[in-house]
């Protein structure tokens, strides 16, 4: 019996490390060769995907761009996808997701992310203010459907972004620019002030280099918020364009209803950084039992089971943390859960539920 057999660590697919390590397990049992190798280089781990911070570039007063070199087990991303980033803050592991802002490259598997410090945001504050070159981060491999179609059939595009919603679009624009073929793109981006625009200089430079990229920056502190009825002023043919929108929940909700009203929602692609929660008025408490770890807690019925488990020190698998990737699924042994997005109550023994968007509706037992 070795640590690998215990299987509580989320599987991260096919490791690229040599098979020699499997044989070496006989020498390191019950630990794994990783446990010793990663003392030499933290990136030498098959079981846990890690990355080293190679560059920290300050973008604005409260945002940085980090270049990260992933360790063993990485797989290349598609522009627009996000990665999971785990940091240890005050001794405790926290996970968030960030869009990759660098273009994919054949020669180099380093990736960049851009992070804006959110007030009281534990992970973003840590990454922006307390992360230095050489630090080790935990990674989860790229995921997400917010990507351009592979056949590039979409020749006219509209990117509608606000705040840090520019980050996945930056990844897409950079990869289009790297290929040297910029299609007809309108980028409509909102930020409070000129100083707060992430990648402002680079966006302007791209727009100069590629006439087919039309850039419209809106500074909401002075110009007010963008309303969608103004859309034709910037982009007359908006209903005919493939649209990729990313930003705060309010903007995305508006965008979704606007495109639906126009009957062209099939052209719309949306990336949310938070799950769209249905209004739940439940203020009750439930007993939640994690059967494998033997923990029982009393949790409120508004907090996702993922968070309750993490707070109780249970090893919870997780991914996007917003109901998309299914990286957090776990079997229910008993009880019912509520889907935060739809308010639907469901759950029967053995059903796999997404813990990140499920709250307890009754007392619940999870096989974790």
């Amino acid at each position: 019996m070795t640590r690998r057999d215990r299987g509580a660590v989320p599987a991260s697919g096919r490791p690229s490390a040599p098979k020699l390590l499997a044989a070496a397990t006989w020498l390191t049992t019950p630990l794994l060769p990783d446990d010793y190798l990663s003392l030499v280089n933290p990136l030498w781990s098959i079981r846990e995907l890690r990355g080293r911070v190679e560059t920290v570039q300050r973008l604005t007063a409260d945002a940085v761009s980090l270049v990260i070199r992933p360790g063993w087990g990485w797989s290349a991303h598609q522009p627009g996808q996000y990665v999971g980033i785990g940091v240890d803050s005050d001794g405790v592991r926290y996970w968030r997701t960030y869009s990759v802002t660098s273009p994919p490259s054949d020669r180099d598997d380093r990736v960049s992310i851009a992070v804006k410090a959110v007030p009281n945001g534990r992970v973003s504050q840590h990454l922006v203010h307390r992360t230095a070159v050489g630090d080790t981060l935990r990674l989860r491999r790229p995921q997400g459907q917010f990507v351009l179609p592979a056949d590039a059939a979409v020749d006219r595009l509209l990117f509608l972004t606000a705040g840090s919603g520019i980050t996945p679009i930056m990844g897409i624009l950079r990869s289009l620019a790297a290929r040297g073929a910029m299609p007809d793109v309108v980028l409509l981006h909102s930020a409070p002030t000129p100083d707060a625009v992430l990648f402002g200089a680079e966006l302007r430079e791209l727009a100069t280099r590629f006439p087919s990229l039309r850039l419209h920056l809106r500074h909401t502190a002075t110009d007010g918020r963008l309303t969608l009825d103004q859309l034709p002023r910037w982009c007359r043919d908006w209903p005919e364009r493939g649209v990729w929108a990313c930003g705060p929940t309010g903007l995305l909700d508006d965008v979704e209803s606007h495109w639906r009203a126009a009957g062209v929602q099939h052209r719309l692609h949306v990336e949310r950084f938070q799950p769209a929660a249905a209004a739940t008025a439940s203020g009750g408490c439930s007993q939640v039992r994690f059967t494998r770890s033997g923990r029982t807690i009393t949790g409120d019925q508004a907090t996702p089971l993922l968070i309750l488990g993490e707070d109780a020190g249970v090893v919870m698998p997780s991914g996007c943390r917003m109901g998309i990737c299914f990286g957090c699924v776990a079997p229910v042994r008993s009880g019912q859960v509520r889907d935060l997005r739809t308010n639907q109550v469901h759950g029967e023994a053995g059903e796999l539920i997404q813990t990140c968007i499920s709250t307890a509706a009754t007392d619940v037992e999870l096989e974790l």
Partner: protein
Amino acid sequence: MTYATARLSDADIEALGSELDCIRADVVASRGERDASYIHTVIKVQRGLEVGGRTLLLGSLLPPLWLAGTAMLSAAKILENMEIGHNVLHGQWDWMRDPEIHSTTWEWDLVTPAAAWKHTHNDLHHTWTNVVGRDRDIGYTIIRMSEDQAWRPWHLAQPAYNLLLAAVFEWGIALFDLELDDVVHGRKGQRELFDQVRAVLGKAIRQAAKDYVLFPLLSGPSAVPTLVANLTANVVRNVWAHTIIFCGHFPDGVEQFTVAEVDGETRGGWYLRQLLGSANIDGSRLLHVLSGNLSHQIEHHLFPDLPSNRYAEIAPQVRALCGRFALPYTTGPLYHQAASAWKRVFRMALPSHPRREAAAVAPYAMA
């Protein structure tokens, strides 16, 4: 109740309990970076010692290398077992949410699989500490450690076989964790036993292959000295663990309890039993680390899941509390506590009457 609690009213016991709850809450609220870096450092040192020791042993035909390698490997195995393994498996570091250092993923360098040990140790021993008939750790079902345990003629030999047990302690624990007596008495199914035996064998093969076949083979001409070194390191670790553990609950001054006494026990009463049923070892910081901080057995039994590096810090508070409630706080230097525990092994080898009439010995398995 008949033990030292006789002097304490129910209200006193609950007051004691809430004071201990406060000590616990203070530690929980202040766990952070400092603690995380402590366990990370201990793990690094342990792995460094192990790699260093095993590397030196590749040339163990040379006596100085054998000596240094064996010493380093013994120290590594002791740290791995005590300060790291035992405490990680208690969930002391689960709050870090690091799957690499977590009670549900950890496996240790002992024959008994972590899962089996967590059941007999965390569930049974820590819940029923020193309750004769419930706490199977009182003599591990083969050594008579209480007047309330029935005397049998074979107990005359227990000083001898306890010495043997010390040398092969990890194998003894592996066997003990199978709870064969429960199978004999029908409290445990044969299917479950079969699965457990398979798990133990699977692990034992890997453990033995590593220490007694593969590393000796890798050492080429130093194969035999390496084999002897690995065997020595395992025995050193076994004897050390056995000694520390026997000092935890068997020296003079530690109380044992009957099932009747713990009937209807409150949270405060549970705390009190842990206090009276455990003994500390005085010593240096090095002794504390090498004992896995089980030298703070009292603090460990009060708060089994607090990080071990905090036990030394809260010990003065716990001791002061004992002073206030006029409760004993059993402690002494290692040689003294070990001699005291061994005296009990000899004393109990001879027949004696139960301490109390209420010693209704219940089956180990709980309803």
